[in-house]
């Protein structure tokens, strides 16, 4: 046996002292060990969906780093395995086949948006894996897969509930509107949302004076806005994606529109660059959203996530504010994490059963899933941009710039009318 020198004894004493002073919680969060729990998915890192795919991936990485720094999942490190689907649904089945059969991932989640989620479904269903999706609308209506879970606030009754907030706000105006124009992009999501607006307009006795879809290849939006103006609606419900939203709002500004209320699922101002570009044109626009930095919509972890996200986003050159996709992408991982912790093992059937049976606490609030895997309680937010001045970014970080009008429980401001596209 080797004798200990005085220096060795000193080192041992220091080590013992250090061990004794480390808090118990920290010792419990020892570095994860063993083979990693591998989570596989496709993500749109190039192509038209990449503007939202990249922030989603960044939120996932933040989650993984946090979990690993706190001892991992079931004591094992988590590892993200993802491939770029180039925003093309045709790439997705091959990616999931590789993830499951070659990479042997333990868990799968979806990439961003309905167009990417739906092509993954047959592969995931064939392998009986639990599947938590991100921003999919009505994906499981036809598949009816009992291990599908959706991180999207639209709920399963899209037709009955999606446009409810917009209509409730409109019908509370004085005087009440009597006519509505419906404009939507010819896409799956926007067809569903327009169907909801059409259904609810009928219920409220609103006369539909314009109801047309436009193709994704549309370049000039002035004829659409001009035709809507000519129909003289009181309110205008629009469903659009970012390039079209910019075109529609620019045209609205040039044609000096004046509608009592205009908005809907106009995806575009959700992306920071477009917020900054449009500036005051956004004033009084009522926009469907999933998050707004208002004091009424803060849950444990929301602000911390955004504060962690923004410097990383600046470094990586992705969406600067991160108010749209990152909170939901992070919640997607939290759902998976909480189910795995409760079940205590990687068992797809048990995970799915747990997700159906229990609720989840996430950065976007508490949520539960129904039989179709949608939220039991829809949470379509209708927000309004107010008091936007110039094109500075800081005003969009503050409360009061994008107030929540609906639902009532998160309401943070009152409707301002009319919508005049910045005039």
């Amino acid at each position, binding site marked *: 046996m080797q004798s200990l020198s005085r220096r060795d004894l000193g080192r041992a004493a220091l080590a013992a002292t250090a061990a004794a002073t480390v808090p118990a919680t920290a010792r419990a969060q020892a570095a994860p060990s063993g083979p990693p729990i591998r989570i596989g998915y496709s993500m749109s*890192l190039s192509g038209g969906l990449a503007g939202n795919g*990249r922030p989603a991936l960044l939120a996932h990485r933040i989650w993984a780093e946090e979990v690993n720094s706190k001892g991992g999942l079931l004591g094992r490190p988590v590892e993200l395995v993802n491939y770029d689907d180039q925003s093309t649904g045709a790439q997705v089945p091959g990616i999931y086949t590789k993830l499951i059969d070659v990479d042997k991932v333990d868990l799968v989640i979806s990439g961003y948006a309905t167009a990417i989620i739906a092509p993954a479904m047959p592969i995931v269903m064939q392998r009986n894996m639990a599947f938590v999706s991100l921003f999919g609308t009505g994906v499981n209506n036809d598949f009816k897969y009992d291990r599908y879970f959706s991180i999207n606030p639209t709920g399963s009754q899209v037709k009955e509930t999606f446009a409810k907030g917009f209509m409730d706000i409109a019908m509370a105006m004085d005087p009440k509107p009597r006519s509505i124009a419906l404009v939507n992009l010819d896409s799956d999501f926007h067809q569903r949302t327009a169907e909801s607006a059409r259904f609810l307009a009928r219920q409220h006795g609103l006369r539909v004076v314009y109801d047309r879809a*436009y193709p994704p290849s549309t370049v*000039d939006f*002035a*004829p659409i806005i001009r*035709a809507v103006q000519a129909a003289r609606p009181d309110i205008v419900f629009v469903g659009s994606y970012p*390039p079209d939203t910019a075109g529609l709002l*620019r045209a609205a500004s040039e044609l000096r529109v004046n509608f009592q209320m205009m908005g809907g699922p106009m995806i575009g101002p959700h992306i920071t660059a477009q917020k900054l*570009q449009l500036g005051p044109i956004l004033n009084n626009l009522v926009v469907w959203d999933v998050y707004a930095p208002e004091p009424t919509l803060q849950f444990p972890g929301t602000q911390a996530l955004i504060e962690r996200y923004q410097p990383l986003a600046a470094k990586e050159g992705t969406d600067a504010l991160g108010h749209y996709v990152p909170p939901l992408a992070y919640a997607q991982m939290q759902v998976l994490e909480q189910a795995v912790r409760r079940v205590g093992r990687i068992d797809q059937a048990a995970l799915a059963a747990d997700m159906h049976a229990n609720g989840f606490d996430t950065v976007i609030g508490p949520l539960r899933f129904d039989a179709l895997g949608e939220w039991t309680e829809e949470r379509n937010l209708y927000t309004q941009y107010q008091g936007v001045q110039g094109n500075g970014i800081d005003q969009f970080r503050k409360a009061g710039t994008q107030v929540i009008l609906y639902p009532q429980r998160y309401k943070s401001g009152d409707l301002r009318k009319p919508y005049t596209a910045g005039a």
Partner: protein
Amino acid sequence: MDPDLALLLNGIVSGLLLGGLYAAAAAGLSVSFGMLDVVNIAHPAFMVLGALLVALLWAATGLDPLLLSVLLTPAFWALGAAIYVVYHHFFERRGDEAIQGLAFFFGVMFIIEVGLVLAIGPEQHFADAAYASTTWRLGEIDLPLRMLVPALVSFAAIGALVLFLRRTFTGRAIAAVAQDREALRLLAIDPVRIKRLAFGISIATAALAGGALVVVQPVDAWSGHVFIGRIFAVVIMGGLSSLGGCVLAALAFGVVENVTATFYGPSWSPAVAFGCLLLVLAVRPQGFFGRAA
């Protein structure tokens, strides 16, 4: 004014302005595809490259986007000339320009798009010209400067190109190379040099078109996709090598699209516009100003 008449006039005027953008996008293709017989399917991607460079330069300098696009033209000319050298060496010289050349330009298109994503990200970029939020009004006719100024710059650039092709020796040589390259050799003119020069010009016009595009709308790496079908249709409808025909076809395309969108809904616009292309080709297979074979 009768509301329907006002709608019709506005539809026609906005269609003419939109046609100005289409003309800018199609003019370069009229040179490369119409005159040089180079099926440059990557032309809209070059336009987007120009648009995004203009957006970056605008963010850095604040100069007018259209002025910046003019400043970019020498660099784009050099880029076009270099690409033609590669294309000629590996495809045209061997007589492989048909399918393999097309594949080459598909590859160039993807490289540009992916390169742009890697370099500046997938987000949309924009450049706000000082006049972009101003709209002139003539009675009930709206003239948004966001559309009018790019259209006027586009017509001016195409006019200058037409003058160059008609009035200068080099310009006539470019027109001649489209008809009989061997005859050029008899005049001691190197047809490859002339084609290199002309292809550079076609890519330089893509920079101008990019400047016009980024004034009209925000642009991302894939914004060129919606223009591929349209600008090939415009060039074919115009008569391939005729810049005048190209402008006329672009204006017709814009007017048909916007009037259809105004009265029958935007979903019908592409169908009616491409239907008109088929009709023109049925009546005049050589296009508006093309020469009959």
